[in-house]
């Protein structure tokens, strides 16, 4: 299995499938929960692994000014990552060749700001259990799926 990582270079691929979105903060970790691919423990493992790799990548780059890994292409899946200005990372694991994941991640970021951060009952760095966030996220993913695949 070969893995190629792209740093700071956006790549669009098509198709949106049972994707996991795990939200991870710099020091802690928040788990949104999955649609059926990964259970909580697995996604926690992936998220912590990803966080370390992300940090290492900044040292690894042959050129200066690398801030993050944007896309990881493996044989059977893609992993898109979006980092906000505060260091919170959003990543989505999707099937090979899925397009518009960057846009999706930005939309998720916007939903996060609205429905999670403005919720007085949400404690920082805890798993996200906000109903409204879930509802809107599902709607967005469904809309995306219909728009891209027509089903």
């Amino acid at each position, binding site marked *: 299995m070969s893995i190629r990582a792209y740093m700071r270079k956006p790549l669009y691929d098509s198709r949106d499938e049972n994707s996991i979105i795990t939200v991870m903060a710099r020091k802690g970790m928040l788990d949104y929960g999955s649609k059926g691919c990964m259970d909580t423990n697995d996604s926690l493992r992936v998220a912590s692994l990803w966080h370390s790799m992300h940090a290492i990548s900044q040292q690894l780059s042959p050129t200066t000014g690398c801030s993050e890994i944007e896309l990881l292409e493996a044989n059977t899946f893609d992993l898109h990552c979006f980092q906000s200005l505060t260091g919170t990372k959003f990543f989505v694991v999707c099937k090979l060749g899925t397009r518009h994941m960057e846009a999706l991640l930005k939309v998720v970021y916007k939903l996060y700001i*609205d*429905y999670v951060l*403005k*919720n*007085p*009952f949400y404690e920082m760095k805890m798993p996200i*259990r*906000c*109903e*409204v*966030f879930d*509802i809107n996220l599902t709607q967005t993913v469904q809309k995306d799926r219909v728009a891209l695949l027509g089903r």
Partner: protein
Amino acid sequence: MIGVGKIKQYSNILEKPLSKGKQEVSLSAFAFLFSELVQYNQTRVDNIAELERRLEDAGYAVGARVLELLCHRDKGNRRETRLLGILSFVHSTVWKVLFGKVADSLEKGTEHEDEYMISEKDLLVNKYISIPKDMGTFNCGAFVAGIVRGVLDGAGFPAVVTAHFVPMEGLQRLRTTILIKFAEEVLQREARLG
């Protein structure tokens, strides 16, 4: 003289007319402020009922001031004496000034004579808030209930106002209803006035 302005200089600040003020405030700013208000109160109470009461009290203060301001600005210093008048004032004018739109509906309760309900599909203060399951029937709309109570009290219509979630078909989110229960004296006065 360059730059002679057209603004009339008032010798006394009390003579200046009340300005309309800024019509709009950032929604995000309000959402964060309200979220902080709820969190602040949460740390100082022992149970949910107390939290709801505190939010209502905060709203009461807002309501009293809003009534004064709107009476002067929008109604030309005339006050409402009839029940339906004050209810439609709350339902349209107060809602329009506070939330930018009139309330969704105003209904009279079927079971009791003294109950009225203002419904809102998506209450502005609840827009970004998800109540955790263990808080039961707590509704941050208690703040708005407090505002309504403040307005009604100031206008001479004492009432008990509460906020409730009402499930609605076809919508995942629950509708919020502000339930207004007027005091006995209000109904008697209304009956006397005919």
